[in-house]
């Protein structure tokens, strides 16, 4: 093996975009072997394992951080356009270098620690926040065979690691010794614990239907097309649609996005648990929130939107990993769209929404999924399951909401 051969393989790899990342990884491993031969030693297998792990870690972190950077500018652009503004357009072409400018700004800002803060905990909190967020993406299947760790209990792993961010928010809020911070932290924890239930419940439904907890297994279960063109994604079943929407809203709540951004609701709590953070620590929180948001939406793609599967059979020429990121980008766009539209919930309404609406709905979806399964997963099952989710939806909607609040029940009197 020599270097020229390695170089020659690059165009070859690029010819088949489907397997490009996998082949690229192999190429790097071969490169390491070649380096070893240059020094004159046979590279032992554990080094290769280590390099393999490192390559995956670097790739995942790099991809997600680049996505974070792009998202931070893209979000502002979309939000601006939805609000009839231009958005950032001064730094670089179309404002694309805005994240660079933001990063420099964040780095050069003074790092302020309040006098009475618990300094150690105040320092640790952003790290505790970022680490789980960066671990989360490892189990997502980005393409065929492209998964860093193919865990048989992947979904469980996701929720277990995700629990770490609650601790981090608590640390941040408590250590700041600020009333807004502690209120924000309490809100954050109440919210995350409440929404974890519908989140896990809707994931459980999928796990039950797919018969596996492994993300790859779940994506494979959604492969193939009904009638030759209709994708077998779970979102296109009634129960799946409901579970997907529940998961989507729970994911919004878990990643503290509008309309569930109560913990940092700036109109009430200034910035909640982030009030006393500045400079790079603040940037770390920000980064963790975005990476966590991508991860949880990646899980949504995996669970309901068919992961890396193409939506239509003739579109399979686009590599599978592209499909994953296209779907993720669509979800990211929808997050901003939601943010541009909705006001924030109030804390008690948010809890009511979680416990009185979303949790019962997730049980209904579970029931409906069972009906769908036992009715043979066909059109009949589709119909039954649709009825089984529609009835609780309208009933709960009426009892939880329309009964109390409606614009139609108001009367306005006019005097000449």
């Amino acid at each position, binding site marked *: 093996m020599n270097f020229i051969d390695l170089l020659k393989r690059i165009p070859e790899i690029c010819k088949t975009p489907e397997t490009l990342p996998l082949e690229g990884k192999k190429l790097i491993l071969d490169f390491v072997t070649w380096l070893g031969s240059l020094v004159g030693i046979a590279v032992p297998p554990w080094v290769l394992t280590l390099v393999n792990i490192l390559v995956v870690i670097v790739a995942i972190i790099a991809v997600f951080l680049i996505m974070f950077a792009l998202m931070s500018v893209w979000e502002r652009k979309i939000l601006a356009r939805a609000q009839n503004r231009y958005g950032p357009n001064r730094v670089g072409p179309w404002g694309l270098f805005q994240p660079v400018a933001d990063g420099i700004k964040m780095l050069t800002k003074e790092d302020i620690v309040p006098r009475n803060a618990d300094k150690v905990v105040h320092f640790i909190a952003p790290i505790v926040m970022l680490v789980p967020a960066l671990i989360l993406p490892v189990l997502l299947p980005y393409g065929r065979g492209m998964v860093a760790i193919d865990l048989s209990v992947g979904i469980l792993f996701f929720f277990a690691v995700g629990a770490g961010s609650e601790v981090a928010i608590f640390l941040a809020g408590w250590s700041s010794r600020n009333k807004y911070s502690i209120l924000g932290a309490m809100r954050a*924890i109440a919210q995350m614990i409440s929404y974890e239930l519908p989140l896990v419940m809707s994931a459980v439904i999928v796990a039950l239907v797919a018969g596996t907890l492994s993300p790859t297994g779940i994506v494979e279960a959604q492969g193939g097309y009904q009638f030759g063109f209709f994708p077998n994604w779970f979102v296109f079943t009634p129960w799946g649609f409901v579970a997907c929407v529940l998961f989507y809203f729970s994911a919004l709540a878990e990643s503290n996005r509008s309309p569930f951004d109560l913990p940092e609701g700036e109109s009430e709590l200034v910035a909640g648990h982030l009030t006393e953070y500045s400079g790079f620590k603040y940037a770390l929180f920000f980064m963790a929130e975005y990476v966590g948001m991508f991860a949880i939406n990646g899980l949504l793609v995996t669970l309901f939107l068919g992961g890396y599967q193409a939506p239509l059979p003739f579109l399979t020429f686009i590599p599978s990993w592209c499909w994953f990121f296209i779907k993720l980008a669509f979800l990211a766009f929808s997050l901003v769209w939601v943010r541009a539209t909705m006001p924030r919930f109030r804390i008690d309404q948010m809890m009511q929404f979680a416990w009185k609406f979303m949790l019962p709905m997730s049980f209904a979806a579970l029931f409906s999924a069972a009906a769908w399964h036992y009715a043979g997963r066909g059109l009949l099952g589709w119909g039954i399951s649709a009825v089984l989710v529609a009835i609780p939806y309208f009933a709960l909607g009426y009892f939880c909401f329309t009964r109390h609040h409606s614009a139609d029940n108001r009367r306005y009197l006019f005097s000449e």
Partner: protein
Amino acid sequence: MHELFQKIIALPWDQAPQWLFLIPAFVMLMGAAAAVMLRNLIHCALCLTLSFIALGVLFMALGAEFVGFVQLLVYVGAVAMLILFAILLTPAGEVAASNNPLRNFKFSRAFAAAGGATVALLVLVSLLGAIFFSPHARAVVPPAQAAIAPVKAIGENLLNHTLLPLQATAILLTAALIGAALLAKEEKKS
């Protein structure tokens, strides 16, 4: 230089996991010790959380991924949070200072230490007993096999052989939850 490099490479890196378990074990013990000894209650709770995490890691090192993740999910995600919440919501320390009659007792510290030591000893003895004298303890399952034991098997075991105890636990927990809710509600009324 070259020799040193060769020597480092020749170390038994492949067997690393077998002794690397010491790290989480150490963290766990230290976390537990800190949880007992620190003065700030929140710090104690955080150290306890740390030892929960380390315990989860230990489970995973043993190949019991499912148990490890459940440990993380339940203990870090829920139990630790509950403890932190409870600490925050109780009036800060003042009650204990004034009203505790035991505090005025001369040898209270000695008694407390003795009581603690007794409990610790009992726990240690029972653990050791369980490890060395229980009939299942000697049947060592090879780690590889444990790792393969899939979630499905656990699920089948839970829902077939131990369904009744599982349901009983569930009912117990529900009852406790309802009780807690009732207590909280009563306090609010008054």
